[in-house]
């Protein structure tokens, strides 16, 4: 793995490898001393052309827990957000010796361009580009689903498992959602069945070949008893004419596509509810649903750090190029060894 640009680039083995590595990372995060020396001396740049406090903090935390030096570069609102400047920014970061660039950009494909235009040698991690992809979000979603629905005694994280046989409903603004695209690709790769649920205006023309079923009716899909329901953020502005007029009113959207207590009650007992955040409480998800025991939304945030640690580790540790599974000893502080983190990691610096 040279870059992480799209979940479509991950095959089943690579995806499971990231999730399993994340499980090992997660295990270290329960300790009193959470920091591993693995990426000591390496530099990770968070290059954010779009506001996203949550994702940036998650990446920053992940990099710091691996002892990398972290530079936050927020380009939102400056002249940096268009034209040649992406190139100049990349050249600048290259000159400063960035080992990895975590990029969030409003333009679909900007991470791809950054990775392939020859501007930088750094590993590029897509932290969300336009309406295209948000691969670490999908990985943390898959990690969370796997943990809850395939984990068991002796293997609480479901290490080694895929998501075969599970049914995941993805509900909301699929058209504009990079989270939906990344999830469809990854969940399909991991063997899950995906159903997209949205008003027809919020589904892309050309959704046909996606490896997912499509429904316009949330209640019908909930009646199928999905194992996980992923609610997507819907922006209120999408209602107005200027925003595209995708639905008549927030109230109608909530009536038809919102997850409330009544709909939550129709789900099987084991089903979980996910949301990538930030939530519009009262629009796509009610407070009852968001705060219910089956909502794993806060846990998604915690898992996000572990998944991003895994991604940075796999990209920067050097053994990522071989495509082989990590040797046991190469991964820092394996789960069963609650030792101080300093014991294993020095070799990778």
């Amino acid at each position, binding site marked *: 793995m040279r870059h992480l640009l799209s979940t479509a680039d991950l095959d089943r083995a690579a995806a499971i490898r990231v999730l399993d590595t994340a499980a090992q990372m997660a295990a270290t995060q329960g300790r009193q001393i959470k920091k591993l020396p693995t990426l000591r001396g390496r530099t990770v740049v968070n290059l954010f052309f779009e506001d996203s406090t949550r994702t940036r903090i998650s990446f920053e935390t992940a990099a710091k827990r691996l002892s990398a030096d972290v530079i936050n570069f927020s380009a939102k609102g400056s002249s940096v957000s268009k*034209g040649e400047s992406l190139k100049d920014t990349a050249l600048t970061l290259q000159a400063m010796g960035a080992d990895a660039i975590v990029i969030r950009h409003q333009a*679909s494909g900007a991470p791809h361009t950054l990775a392939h235009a020859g501007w930088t040698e750094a590993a590029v991690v897509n932290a969300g580009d336009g309406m295209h992809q948000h691969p670490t979000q999908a990985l943390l979603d898959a990690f969370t689903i796997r943990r809850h629905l395939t984990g068991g005694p002796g293997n609480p994280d479901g290490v080694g498992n895929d998501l075969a046989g599970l049914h995941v409903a993805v509900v909301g603004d699929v058209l504009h959602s990079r989270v939906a695209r990344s999830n469809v690709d990854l969940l399909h790769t991991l063997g899950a069945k995906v159903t997209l649920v949205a008003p027809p205006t919020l589904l892309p023309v050309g959704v046909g070949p996606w490896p997912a079923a499509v429904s316009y009716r949330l209640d019908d899909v909930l009646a199928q008893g999905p194992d996980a329901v992923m609610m997507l953020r819907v922006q209120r502005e999408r209602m107005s004419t200027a925003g595209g007029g995708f639905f008549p009113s927030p109230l109608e959207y909530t009536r038809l596509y919102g997850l409330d207590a009544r709909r939550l009650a129709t789900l099987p007992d084991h089903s979980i509810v996910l949301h990538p955040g930030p939530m519009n409480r009262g629009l796509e998800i009610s407070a009852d649903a968001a705060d219910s025991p089956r909502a794993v939304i806060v846990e998604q945030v915690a898992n996000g750090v572990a998944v991003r640690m895994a991604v940075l580790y796999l990209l920067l540790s050097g053994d990522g190029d071989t495509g082989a599974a990590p040797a046991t000893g190469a991964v820092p502080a394996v789960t069963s060894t609650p030792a101080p983190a300093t014991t294993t990691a020095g070799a990778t610096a």
Partner: protein
Amino acid sequence: MTAQYLLKDVRPLGGEPTDVLVAGGLVAAIGPEAGDAAENAPDDLEVIDATGMVLLPGLVDLHTHLREPGREDAETIASGTRAAAAGGFTAVHAMANTTPTQDTAGVVEQVWRLGAQAGWTDVHPVGAVSVGLAGEHLAELGAMADSAARVRVFSDDGKCVHDPVLMRRALEYVKAFDGVVAQHAQEPRLTEGAQMHEGVVSAEIGLAGWPAVAEEAIIARDVLLAEHVGSRLHVCHLSTAGSVEIVRWAKSRGIDVTAEVTPHHLVLTDEEARGYDPVFKVNPPLRTQADVDAVREGLADGTIDIVATDHAPHTREDKDCEWAAAAFGMTGLETALSVVQQTMVDTGRMTWADVARVLSTNPARIGRVEGHGRPIAVGEPANLVLVDPEQRRVVEPERQATASANSPLRGRELPGRVVATFLRGRATVLDGVPQDDPADPRFAAGRVTP
């Protein structure tokens, strides 16, 4: 004194080999008489062994962006027409979206004069339909028509004349001077923020879609308007299967509509967008393979009248960036003939006579350009292009004559090579090389060394 040229064993319109003598600015003789005439020719006779080569009337582009005035960093009238000559063109229509806009007699006359001074091709400025391309008020179409530039083609290209009343008025008004409105068919509301063709690929890669219906709806409206007011209409860069169907239907009703397709819409599809390389960002966008098949069929059966390049040079900084920030457009003057050969001739869909029709005769007729697109016959103006269809070459944008490098065909091998271009008997290109005048300081400065 212009040299005389004897083209030996050349195939006019791809027909039987013969000799053609170019002298005095005219096709002076054809057949054995050409050789006889050359016998007692003066010292400046140049004999070109044209065995296997095809002679066509000089190509006429109805849709060229020369960028001057305003964006001389991307192209000038001199560099753009030099590129045109290298591509086999003897006349180009310079689109109106310059800065300032070509919406007054003064600006179109300036473009026309700069074209004449450059001397590579005839330059026919296109007049804007509306003031500043704003789509609100008619520009002074009559003044442009009566100017020294004798404008006959009017277009807001780059923008659509979307107001149906303004479009109707323009269609009616240009009848007074036998003009034509060339419409950039793009419903603006359906294409706000659009980045590429709306379909399977846009859904997957997350770029805002430019639906086919946004083009087709305008074409449908415009052919009905043209029928209603009895005007002629030209449809720029038609790109979808549905558009071909609408034009076919309109022609079957006797509506006076003509249509063009670009070389890139004959050969490239929206699959190219997957790498997010903005060199493939163009308006109208690259469509699907089904659309490519339909425009090829439409060109072969005459539904589409012409191939026009929509040559749209852009500076590196306008393309060396993320897709959404990049400019729309791609160059095409120096590859158009090769693309037509590859997609239409080498596949058996068209003959070289058909190529002459779609790249010379028809565009000259639509633009009311005199002296171009004529038959290859004794006494006709010697506006000619000599093509070697057997040669192949790899496209290297940096080595092209155009000042910009945004060719979508970089690295592709294409058939055919322009060996010589003659503008009224003067060789603007010989042995594939533009014939710069060493005495002219403008060329000495900007000369491209091969």
